[in-house]
């Protein structure tokens, strides 16, 4: 059969008023698959269905080619990583790691101890083997949970927003550590999150879901660069979305009228069939210069005025009025050099290749 680790085939499930609708995707060996969506989108229900806590009303779930649609959770070999990792508080680190081993009938008991030792060593947990989870740091908990799941040799991991309850600094460092560990372990994983940065950093492939519907699927650069609709665009961090009309297409470059005075050029991949479109521009693709424009004849040069700005972690978000509203990310250095206080005159430049068009019906 298929050589994918997990195949979710047209899965539908209704729970009360919520429904997963016709979800299909597959997880390839060694891959990290991100599922991105707002709270209430059905991400957790989807994971719990894959793990066997819900049975789909329609569709099939295959793990390594085996149909597990109606199999019990304990028969699926899925390493479920909950938020905060749900370590057993009454057991030590070593006992937590050992937990999954004792239910493997095929394995002779005497090897259990050495397996636990191996796993503890592999994840650097020997020093804390006798501690209880309440005395562990976030990073230690993460590694214990991974070791505990690895003990039963999972076909893949499921991560249910494991980092979402943490403060920003801890989250950044745990995310880095998790990425490294996932690469080292080589175990495929599905990673559910509402955080686009997490999805971008961790995932080899991405799906965006909302209200139980899978809206888009692809590599992170496909999803982030070419969202299929306005919701996905906003969710993956597109700040500027303007309605426009395609005037003409020359050599794969479409010219879009967005206001009576402004036209934006966009590289058209032939996906847009209708003249009515949404123009999507990511804030990090907007370059700002002092007027006059360096090359006033060049395409997508828009003189404008700063109307607002706000600090955004290491970057600043600057809102412009270029005849249409435009949002740009700049570094603090650029902000100071260009004197981007509200009212300042600037010229915004966007590469045609960085402009994405969404066809509107």
């Amino acid at each position, binding site marked *: 059969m298929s050589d994918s680790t997990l195949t979710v085939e047209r899965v539908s499930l209704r729970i009360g008023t919520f429904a997963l609708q016709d979800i299909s995707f597959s997880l390839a060996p060694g891959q990290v698959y991100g599922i991105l969506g707002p709270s209430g989108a059905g991400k957790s229900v989807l994971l719990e269905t894959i793990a*066997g806590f819900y049975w789909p009303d329609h569709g099939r779930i295959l793990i390594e080619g085996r149909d597990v649609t109606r199999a019990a959770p*304990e028969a699926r070999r899925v390493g479920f990583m909950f938020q905060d990792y749900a370590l057993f508080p009454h057991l030590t680190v070593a006992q937590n790691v050992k937990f999954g081993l004792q239910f493997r009938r095929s394995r002779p008991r005497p090897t259990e101890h050495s397996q636990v030792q191996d796993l503890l060593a592999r994840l650097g947990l020997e020093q804390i083997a006798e501690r209880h*989870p309440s005395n562990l740091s976030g990073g230690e908990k993460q590694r214990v949970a991974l070791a505990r799941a690895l003990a039963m040799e999972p076909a893949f991991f499921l991560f249910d927003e494991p980092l979402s309850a943490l403060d920003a600094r801890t989250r950044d460092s745990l995310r880095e550590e998790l990425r490294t560990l996932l690469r080292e372990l080589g175990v495929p994983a599905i990673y559910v999150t509402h955080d686009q940065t997490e999805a971008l950093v961790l995932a080899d492939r991405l799906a965006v879901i909302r209200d139980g519907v899978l809206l888009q699927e692809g590599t992170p650069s496909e999803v982030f660069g070419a969202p299929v609709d306005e919701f996905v665009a906003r969710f993956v961090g597109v700040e500027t979305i303007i309605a426009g009309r395609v005037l003409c297409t020359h050599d794969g470059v479409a010219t879009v009228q967005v206001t009576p005075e402004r036209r934006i050029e966009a590289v058209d991949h032939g996906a847009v069939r209708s003249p009515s479109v949404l123009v999507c521009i990511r804030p990090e693709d907007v370059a700002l210069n002092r007027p006059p424009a360096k090359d006033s004849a060049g395409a997508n040069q828009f003189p404008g005025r700063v109307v607002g700005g706000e600090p955004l972690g290491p970057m600043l978000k600057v809102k412009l009025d270029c005849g249409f509203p435009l949002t740009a990310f700049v570094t603090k250095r650029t902000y100071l050099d260009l004197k981007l206080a509200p009212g300042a005159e600037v010229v915004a430049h966007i590469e045609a290749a960085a402009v994405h068009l969404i066809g509107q019906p």
Partner: protein
Amino acid sequence: MRTQTLGQSRGLVFVFSVVGGLLLAFILVPLLRMYATQTPATLMQIAAIEDVQSAIWLSLEAAFLTALLAGALGVPLAYLLARTTFPGKGVVEAVVDLPLAIPHTVVGIALLFVFGRTGIIGGPVNAVTGFQFWGTWGGIVIAMLFVSVTYTVNAARVGFESVDARLERVARTLGAGPWSVFGRVTLPLAWRGIVTGLMLTYARSISEFGAVIILTYYPMTAPVKIYDLFLQSGLDESSAMAVLFLTASLAVFIILRHLSYGRVTPGGRRM
């Protein structure tokens, strides 16, 4: 010790402390007064009576047995109430609480209809096995169980509700079947709640008088014997036995409590 946190007024804490203190005094003064009036000679004399000794032992044993039975019968129901929803759950909860609202003499009379000589269970059980609930420890345990099992169910339920359901789920994904998850994750983590329930059931059972005296006058439990002494011999002798019984049951209660809560707690600390 900090007696006050920010945001609480000193005046409020003071007034409430006075009222709380009065309540504690209301509980403790009669008991201490009863202890204070005893003379060693009377205590020794009463303690030497064989009936008194056997009544106290019977109370301790029957209450212990009741607690075990309450655990075996109450824990499964507590788990269901904590973890599942089903039609009529409100009715089930009300039934569990019902014994608390029934006068204990009424309990005794109702139990006679079922476990008495001609009762719908007492009769057949006696005919088949020869065991009788009347006049034996069987009736005592039945009466104690009826009035005290509520505490086990409710406290165990709180214990189960305090166990994060994700821990049970993660255990399933690690290969444990439902029974293993219950035994290795849920039960150990709900242990404190269950033990609290068993303690309350034990304490309530030991103090039961009304239902026991109607279902089973003989053999006498300690409360029945104390009542008997009160009627036959007066306050001095009955209060002496009361002090002996109270001391014995408190001692057992403290020992059991210590043994049970001495287990490793979820935080990994030993109490």
